[in-house]
């Protein structure tokens, strides 16, 4: 177990370097564009001014030179400064709580609706409930967030003001319920399909038949044997999903005015602010890797047959 952990942590360092390198290369290859003009908006930039800014932001340095500077700073825990002179660590720390809260709500929505519906559908395969939830959850896949988010805001934030239309910064839990539902709905379909398949599978497993024939009541069979054994794929999914939600939801965050990671990344991608984009992605990758590791460790807890050595 301990050796496994050490090995995974070492691999994480490699993955981290790999990802930052690729992102760095992407920014360098054109993702950055022309940050000087972007900062000026549609106002003109004079040649002298351009020369000064290029010098100031090291825009004309070579790729490896810039990557080396970045790594050197990183080792000392310094993510650097944005083109507008803000400390990038502070920017990420400011944005993270909003995204984390939003992700939590979204995951709860996914679990409550997706997993519950999936269990019922799995037990009553082929029933009306099964088929109608199939259609309804899949319709959601057909409606992109660009549509779902503003519509939800208009209906439940403005027309029938059950929830706040937009969030403040930092947002309260209450302000994030509506965007959280919108975001969570996106993965309800998958969570449901996955749970349904898993439950249906396990209902036919030998150990369930054994338990039933021993005279164990149905509810207990489902609660103890079926659910526990169905949890692994769902936990995987939820884990990966939570990891990616931590990376921020660009459209939902924009629509509901949530100043989270998604917004930070989108805004600075548009500005071509390479230091912020790379810094943010670096942090994201770490969050993601940790989420994956925790999921892998949970397997061992849920399924005693799995051993890590």
């Amino acid at each position, binding site marked *: 177990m301990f050796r496994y952990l050490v090995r995974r942590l070492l691999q994480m360092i490699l993955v981290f370097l790999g990802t930052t390198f690729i992102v760095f290369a992407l920014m360098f290859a054109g993702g950055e564009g022309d940050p000087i003009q972007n900062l000026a908006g549609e106002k003109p930039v004079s040649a*002298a001014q351009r020369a000064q800014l290029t010098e100031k932001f090291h825009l004309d340095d070579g790729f490896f030179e810039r990557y080396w500077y970045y790594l050197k700073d990183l080792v000392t825990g310094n993510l650097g400064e944005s083109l507008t002179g803000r400390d990038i660590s502070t920017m990420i720390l400011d944005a993270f709580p909003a995204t984390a809260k939003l992700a939590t709500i979204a995951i709860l929505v996914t679990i409550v609706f997706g997993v519950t519906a999936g269990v019922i559908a799995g037990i009553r395969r082929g029933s009306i409930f099964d088929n109608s939830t199939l259609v309804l959850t899949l319709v959601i896949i057909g409606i992109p967030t660009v549509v779902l988010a503003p519509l939800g805001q208009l209906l439940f934030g403005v027309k029938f003001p059950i929830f706040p239309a937009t969030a403040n910064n930092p947002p309260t839990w209450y302000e994030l319920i509506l965007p959280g539902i919108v975001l969570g*709905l996106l993965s309800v379909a998958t969570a449901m399909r996955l749970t349904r398949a898993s439950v249906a599978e396990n209902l036919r497993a030998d150990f369930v038949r054994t338990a039933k024939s021993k005279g164990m009541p149905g509810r207990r069979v489902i609660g103890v044997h079926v659910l526990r054994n169905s949890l692994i794929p769902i936990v995987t999914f939820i884990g990966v999903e939570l990891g990616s939600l931590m990376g921020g939801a660009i459209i939902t965050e924009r629509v509901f005015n949530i100043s989270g990671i998604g917004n930070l990344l989108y805004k600075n991608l548009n500005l071509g602010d390479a230091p912020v984009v790379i810094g943010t992605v670096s942090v994201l990758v770490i969050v993601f890797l940790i989420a994956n590791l925790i999921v892998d460790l949970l397997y061992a807890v849920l399924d005693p047959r799995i051993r890590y050595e």
Partner: protein
Amino acid sequence: MQVRRLAAWAALPLAVTLGLTACGKSGGDSGSANQNGVVSIGISEPQFLSPANTSETGGSQVLSALFAPLVDFDEANKPFEVAAQEITTTDNKTWTVKLKDGWTFHNGEPVTADSYINAWNYAAYGPNAAKNNYFFDKIEGFKALNPADAATKPETSTLTGLKKVDDKTFTVTLSAPFSEFKALLGYTAFYPLPKAAWESDTAAPLVLKKDFQEAPIGNGPFKIKGTWQHDSQVEVEKYDAFAGTKPHIGGALFKIYQNSDAEYADLLANNLDVVKQIPTESLSTVQGDLGDRFQQSPSSSFTFLAFPTFDPRFKDVDVRKAISMAIDREEIANKIFQGSQKAAYSFTSPVVAGYRDKTCGTACEFNPTEAKSLYEKSKGPKELNISYNADGPHKQWVEATCNQLKTNLGVECVATPEPKFADLLTKVEKKEDVGMFRLGWAFDYPSMENYLGPLYSTGGSSNYYGYSNPEFDSLVKAGTEAPTTDEAIKKYQEAEDILAKDLPVLPLRFGQNVFGHSTKVKNVAIDLFTRVDLNKIESVG
């Protein structure tokens, strides 16, 4: 859950027609003003909060609360003194600025001639890479501070044209006479800075404190409350020792929004008092949403289509004229912009003195039959395209313009998006095939010259299409150096007439501020720099 959503979908059109009229009639300028009320105004996250660097509307809105300018503009857009006692000149080259007595910064420090000279020197000093650096290029000594090669350090750090006379007076010497220098002083870049802003106020060059912009200290009617809460808000409160005209409100809360749809949704939900720019797509429902709390006022923005001079397809002026006549400007202004922009038939904006209607003449009048025959006669290209930047709200109108050209000229026309404005410019600079491209302009100071100079003169800062006419250039130059404004305007108008003949660009529309406010405020006005006028706005109840 899902069932409810489906029902909601079905109910939507009904709800739109029924529900929104309910809150329509409640607007109006009624109720008694509350001198201590705090109004909330939506802005975008400022890039910077320092006079030398702030140029976008979010930041300049906040600075307009924290700082008072030397001059402001009256209803006729003529400059009048605010922080200045008087601004005088005899030759339009050397200007004497005399400051009012008794003005202090929010930290109690008196506002002196040095406050201005230091702030201006800082912005003009090339290595500081200040965004508003170019505002100082008319002042003597600017070149020495801005060597073309960034590696060379300037030998001096002060403008030779700035001279302190006494604590309250200084002179500005320009490198060439400029009759409208006074109007220029209304811009954000010319605010003063206190001694407390500098690491050391005797150092040369001056170094601005790193965290100054987190809580700027200004000379304006409001002082900052706490610090700039990034991506959240900036709050300001009345500065009691302010020596100028006092505002009617106790403070302002600038709420930062990520997009204008969210901002508008908050206004509808009554969480926000003022939205400065209502998204175009929402204008068709705005009357029902806001009633008489929806307002419009002229802005300085000007939208036009440019023909790159490197593209041989547009070399013939008749081709350009035919394209111009095939565009129904009124239809686009009314249908795409719901009347929130005005069709343009001139090359400068109606908000500046000297503007004349329809200087573009028949070339800009919609005349599809004439357009088509002229286009065929001059053998215009069979395929047209109009490039635009997708990071601005241009998609709808560029596509509509293309559709008109298709119908009226019988050609193919494609609206080509570029992700960002910078990408568009890069392509133009590389002389790639962009076809026609959209451009917009909003002035830095209210003068015809601020349209003619940057947009159409040879090497003008925003003349990306490469138009050049020496006769035009000399008329604009004669205008800037003319002894009086009236004489200047005469020269500018002569220059504008040349544009009508050459047609380097097609004027399309003049912008408007389309803004809305809640029932909790009144007397909302937007000034020429798209800022809410904090001296006029009042809080109700």
